[in-house]
Structure formats: C-alpha cells, structure tokens
C-alpha cells in the first residue's frame, strides 16, 4: 500500500513538463495565440479610412490584396527567403564542422553569437556604411583608381540577400553545430577505414546523419526571412520589396488594416505549410 502510494506520488511530481507545462501554455495563449487570432479577425473586418477597423464582417481586405496584385511580391519573398536559407546552409555546414573539431570551439561559438548582442538595425546600418555609395569599399576603390564612379553595391536584391544571409547565418550554424557535435568522430574514421575518400565521407556519412540539423537550419532561416521587413526597407531597391514591407505599407501609408491583416494571415498559412512540409519530409526520409 505505502509502496503504491509513493510510486504515484513520484509519478505525479516527476517531470518539469507536468509541473510547469500549464505556465507555458498560459504564456503562449496570451502572447502568441491571441495576437494571431486578432490578426485573423482583423482580416475579416471592414476598413476604417482613418486607420483602424470597423466591427463589421467583410472580405474586402482579401479582395484588396488581389486587386493590388501581390503575387510577384509573394513569389519574390519566397524565392529570396529560399535562396538565403540555401546559402546559409551551404556556408553553415563546413563552418559548423570546422568549429566542432576546432581547438578554439568555445571561442568560435562565442563569435557566432556575438552579433546577437547588438541591435539588428545598427548592424544593417553598419553594412550601409561599408557598402554604401560613399561607403568604405567605394572610397577605397575610388582612391585606388580602380573605378571612376562609385559602384552600386546596395539598394538591390543582391544586397538584400547578402544582409539576410549575414543576419540569419547564426540560426543555421547553431542547429548544425549541435547535430555535428552529436556524431562520434569515429564514424568518419570508420568510413575512411572502409574505403571512403574524404568526399565520400562527407556525402555518405556526414550529410545523411545531420539531415535533421539541416532541416532545422533551413526552417530557422527561411521562416524569419519570409517575414523580414527592415532589411529590404534599408538596403533594398525598387524591386526588392518583400511581403513584410507591403504589410507595413498597408498598415501605415495606405491605412488599410484589414488588407495588412489579410496579407499577414496568408503569410502565416504559407509559413505553417512550409514548416509542415520540411519537418514531415525530413522525418519521412529518416524512418525509411
């Protein structure tokens, strides 16, 4: 009898999840679920021309964004996010591998994390200072006589891509670092011992074993890039506007809150679909 009672006590008092799970749930509902529901609700309400909304059902917000022809912006956003996530992974895989087996592992990890200590806007302005028309590189090129007039490094899609990769690279490095660190080094030695060249070790042993890390890294870059606002606003050109900028414009300049909420809702659904596809796709290959 005593034993049984004790056992049940142990079970109920056991995991932190059971103890604190409800706290997380409340936090999530207040700060995440409710705002998302508010946005969804706004997208089906009527526009107030002063800004704000009138509490009356309408699908004019969705009609507006189709009239405004946002398809190109949506496609551009997805393409730029996809490319920046792909570039981040191409850079992050070798970099993480190097960090895992480096003598200065902790120091290098610190370097990866340091950018988070500074506001991202300041870091974007730092890039403008470097790449701008009167920036460091242009002045150097002009003074050396390599070019006659300044080179237009920023205010185009390439600059948006560059700064996106710069901003989100740590998000790709960290999951890849942890998934590479989990692997025993002996696996690579065994692979070489069994006849692999270095290249084959990479493709046949390293890559398949960090698939989950690659999926996480991709999601961690792709999703925030979909909603990015400041980067194209500051270093983008006429044709670099992304969906985040359109949301801001509808909200502030056009004062069409239902349209802004409608774009946000579509973006949200796109994001959820992307996450499901990546995670489910990764797992399915894992179990085969």
């Amino acid at each position: 009898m005593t034993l049984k009672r004790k056992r049940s006590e142990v079970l109920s008092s056991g995991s932190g999840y059971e103890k604190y799970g409800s706290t997380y749930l409340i936090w999530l509902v207040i700060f995440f679920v409710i705002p998302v529901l508010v946005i969804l609700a706004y997208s089906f309400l009527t526009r107030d021309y002063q800004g704000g909304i009138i509490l009356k059902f309408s699908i004019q917000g969705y009609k507006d964004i189709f009239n405004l022809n946002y398809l190109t912006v949506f496609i551009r956003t997805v393409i730029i996010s996809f490319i920046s996530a792909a570039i981040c992974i191409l850079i992050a895989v070798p970099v993480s591998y190097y960090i895992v087996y480096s003598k200065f592992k902790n120091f290098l990890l610190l370097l990866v994390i340091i950018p988070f200590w500074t506001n991202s806007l300041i870091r974007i302005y730092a890039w403008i200072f470097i790449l701008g028309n009167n920036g460091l590189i242009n002045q150097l090129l002009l003074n050396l006589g390599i070019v006659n007039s300044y080179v237009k490094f920023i205010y185009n899609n390439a600059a948006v891509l560059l700064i996106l990769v710069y901003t989100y690279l740590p998000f790709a490095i960290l999951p890849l670092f942890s998934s590479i660190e989990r692997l025993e080094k002996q696996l690579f030695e065994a692979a070489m011992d069994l006849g692999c060249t270095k290249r084959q070790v990479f493709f046949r042993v390293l890559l398949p074993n960090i698939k989950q890390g690659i999926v996480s890294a991709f999601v961690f870059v792709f999703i925030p890039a979909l909603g990015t606002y400041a980067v194209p606003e500051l270093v983008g050109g006429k044709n670099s506007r992304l969906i985040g900028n359109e949301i801001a414009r509808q909200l502030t300049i056009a004062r069409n809150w239902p349209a802004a909420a409608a774009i946000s809702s579509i973006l949200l659904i796109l994001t959820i679909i992307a996450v499901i596809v990546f995670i489910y796709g990764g797992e399915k290959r894992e179990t085969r």
Partner: protein
Amino acid sequence: MPGSSVSIIEVDKYFGDFHVLKNVSLEIEENEFFSLLGPSGCGKTTLLRIIAGLEDVDDGDVLLDDKSILNLPPNKRPVNTIFQNYALFPHLSVYENIAFPLRLKKFSESEIKRRVDWLLNLVRLEEHAQKKPSQLSGGQKQRVSLARALANEPKVLLLDEPVSALDAKLRQELLIELDNLHDRVGITFIYVTHDQAEAISISDHVAVMNSGVVVQYGTPYEVYESPADTFVANFIGESNLMKGDVVEILSDEYIAVEFPSFGKVICYRDKPVKVDDTVLITLRPEKVRIMHNKPTPSDGIPGNVVHGIVDEVIYMGYQTKYFIKTDEGYILKVYKQHVSYLLDERIIKWKDEVFLYWNPDDSFIVEVEEN
C-alpha cells in the same frame, strides 16, 4: 582470404612533447592472432591506428608483406578496423552498414546481396538485417561491425578493445566467437586490449607494452610463465613478488635466497647472479601447494617449505584463494584448485597452521640489483 604479415620497424611517435611510441619494432606473422597488451596510455591503440593509417609516424616504417604502407591513405590499405564503440552508421540498417564498403566498390546489387548474406550468416545476425543500429544490443552491434570490417576482405583485421564495452559473460562469448571467426576467415588479427586474460586466452603471440615500449614479446605461455620484468609479472596474472639477498650459489641452475619475509628458499637461477646480489623473485600463487602436515623429503617433494597461518580465505567454488601469513609476518598468496570433491578432504580454515611448498623452478628471478 589469405592474410598478410605486418612488420613494425623502429616506429617513433610523438603527441606534442609526449613520446607515445619509443622505437617500437614488431613482427606479426601472416594469419596469426596477435595481441597488443598493455595498460591504458601505453601506446597500443596509437600503434593500431598507425597500421590503419589513421595516425602518421614520426619515424620508422610499417610493412605489409614486406612492402611499406605508410604512403597509402586509410581507404587504400587492405586493412580494416573494429572500433571500441562499434562506429556503426546510425542512419543505415544492419544490412546497409555491412553493404557500405561493397557499395563504395560499386559491386552489382546481386553480388552485394550474396556477400552481405554470407557475412550476416557468419556473425549470426540474419534476422536483424533490417534493424537500425540503435535497436541492437552491444554484442550485436559489435558483430555487425565485425561483418562490416570483413566485407572488404581485408588482409589484416585490427581490433581496438572490441569487447571492453560489454559485460563479462558476453565478453567471454564474443571472444570465443572471435576465435572461431579467426579460424574461419584465416586472416591476420591484431587485437588491442588492456585485459591480460583476453590476450593470453586467444592469441598466438602477445606483445606486452608499457610506456611506449614493447617490454616482452612471446607466446602466451612465455609471457605468463617467464615474465621479462616486474611490470609483466604484475600485469599478467597474479604473482607474489619478493625481494631477497642471494646467500649461496648452489649450482648452475639454483641459488639460495634469504628473504627477510620468510627465511631461506631455493630459487631458479635464470639470470646470472652472484652472492650478495639483491634479487626480486616472483612466485605464481597457483604454483604453491598448501597442506596441514609438514611434508617430508620422503614424500618425494623437492624444494621449499614455508610455515604460516591462514589469514584470509576466499572460496570461489572452483578454487580457494588463501592469504597466508608467514612466521615473519609476510602475506603470501596461494591459490588452491579444487580438482576433487572438496568435502572429502580436511578443509583448510581461517587461523589454521599450514605448510606451503613449491618446486624451486617456480620461484625465479625477475630483476637483479647488484651490490
């Protein structure tokens, strides 16, 4: 699959300032089961990794069938390794792990299947072929890694403490299996271990290493019955090590040694000594016989007789370990094998007065200090 001979020629290896291997030379015969035995940090694993190509040498050469292999990368050497932690590829099934080296060689699917099936049968894992490594027990994982290493038909198989991560019973089973496997595939096995019992039970030859030096090379009998120095005597099996002074040279073969611990005994003279030299004598506990009555020369027993009191009795079923306190207060280990029904005898108990005797040939010199 014929195996290769391996020659290690004056190999030196440093890790930074640490001299891991000091001018190591070894001859490993083709198709033999060879063990590198030594405590952790003695350099045995480094030597194995050098043969595999996973480490470079700072000096010396490694020959396979009289040809140097130092310039070959690991993937070009006809040598495969069993790693201590198995190193199975977690993303591949048992079947695909074993097929891994065959796919690298671009064999046809039917040829791969034929060979993998043969190897699965060899290590008795047919019914586990589709499982992932994470679903296997330690012993099964090690058998997969054996099959995978043999798939390339190597000339030499290197085994780095392959059974040390397993529990005692499984370790015994896998050792016997390894021995059978060696008989079946007939290639050279080089086995690294810190466990002397493993090494002497399955090897044709053993090299005992300590601090980067091969201190003794020989058959298991040789290293057990005639250890080269104190280290080997202590490391392999158990022994009574006693320090005494040579008091008389009896013949070419025997000397009399006076021990402060238990008086004068006759020892085998396997090293040149003279009177007054201090010698370190070893005596294996199982070579000493124990009885209640003092043996007389008419019993036909030559040799040494020592009197003492039983200080500790450790009964183990098949044998009993006695710790005997001699009249001078020294503790001597004596192991008695129970070769007949124990209860018929007068059992030796704690605090009994006993006599120990042994053949002088069994107490011999391991080290000499000249005075």
